[in-house]
């Protein structure tokens, strides 16, 4: 009788006792793999965030690459334009924006803007994000804003070509990417200023800087 009463609990205990290390090992494995997955998730997160600007083909620098190819800034396209260009997001309706894209692979670019009554601002946006340079018409000399955009190598070349002992009067802006956008914004104080503002914004000249 005693043997009968002792045997079943032993049988009930033995499978549990055998499963416990297995359960523990399984749990440890689950925790370790989850931890590894979370570490991998962190790496994937950081790499994705850093890669988006490089991989994106829908940013402003790509969308507006065709603007300003003829040496003058072109106004940003309106929604539903014939060229199929996307409209600028979060744009101020009281500002006239014109864009000149640049590609420094062929040499530095000279940007010349005439100033007028409406406030004018020029900014240099590099491909992949970041405003490299911003200047407003308050810095204009005799009604003209003028600067050169170049890569670091092109600037070194120009410094080497400068006359000995003479300081260059030109304003040189270094872009760390070969491509980017020059954005001219003119504030429309009153709706009647639109024609003036458009003339100012599209009057920004951006052509190859002649050497020397």
């Amino acid at each position, binding site marked *: 009788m005693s043997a009968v009463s002792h045997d079943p609990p032993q049988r009930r205990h033995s499978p549990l006792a055998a499963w416990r290390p297995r359960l523990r090992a399984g749990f440890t494995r689950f925790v370790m793999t989850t931890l590894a997955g979370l570490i991998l998730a962190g790496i*994937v997160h950081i*790499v994705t*965030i850093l890669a988006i600007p490089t991989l994106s083909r829908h940013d402003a620098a790509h969308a507006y690459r065709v603007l300003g190819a003829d040496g003058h800034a072109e106004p940003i396209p309106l929604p539903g334009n014939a060229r199929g260009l*996307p409209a600028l*997001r979060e744009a101020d309706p009281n500002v006239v924006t014109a864009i000149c894209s640049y590609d420094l692979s062929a040499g530095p670019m000279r940007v010349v803007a005439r100033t007028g009554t409406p406030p004018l*601002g020029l900014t240099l946006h590099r491909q992949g994000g970041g405003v490299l340079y911003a200047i*407003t018409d308050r810095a204009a000399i005799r009604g003209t804003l003028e600067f050169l955009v170049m890569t670091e190598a092109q600037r070194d070349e120009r410094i080497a070509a400068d006359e000995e002992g003479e300081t260059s009067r030109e304003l040189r802006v270094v872009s760390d990417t070969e491509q980017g956008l020059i954005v001219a*914004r003119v504030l429309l104080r009153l709706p009647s200023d639109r024609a003036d503002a458009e003339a100012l914004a599209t009057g920004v000249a951006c052509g190859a800087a002649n050497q020397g």
Partner: protein
Amino acid sequence: MRILDLAYILALGAGIGLGTAHWAVAGRPAIGRVEVGAWTAWPGSGSREVDPYMRAYLARGVHLPLGSGEGLELIAERDDAGQPLDGRCRYKLSGATPTARGWTIGITDGDGLPFRLPLARTSFTDSEIVRPEDGSLSIIAAATPEAGNWLPLPASGGFQIRLRLYDTPISSQTGETRVANLPRIARIDCR
């Protein structure tokens, strides 16, 4: 079993990693945000050293942020009491604007687009508003017509107020700007 473990790690890593990356840059990122009263700004977005999250957010659409030396954009989604802005309410914008060459104040939807309303008045510039004798700012934002400077609102739903300051010295020290230097947004009443 090893393959199962590896598949689990890869699925977890790719799923959570890509998911959180998408979530972090789907809207304007929390990093680099400066809050002054009801207004929020991202002064770093127009600088050379833009942070990676803002850079990723800007690269996902056709954005051209104002340069740090060019101006500053401030966005309000709540009133001074912290209540979300709603088209069913009337709001009074009053007080001062920081020193700037010019500014514009406009009503937009959550994506920064103006609403298509019967009256095409989506914003005011500093030259367009009518000022009282003391030169202070007073704009009423409401869905129904108001006397004075009236910014029409959509009949219902959320909206944003965007204040853009051009050629302003505060863009480099936005964090130190006091609430009193920016327009106040007070809810008058609601329908």
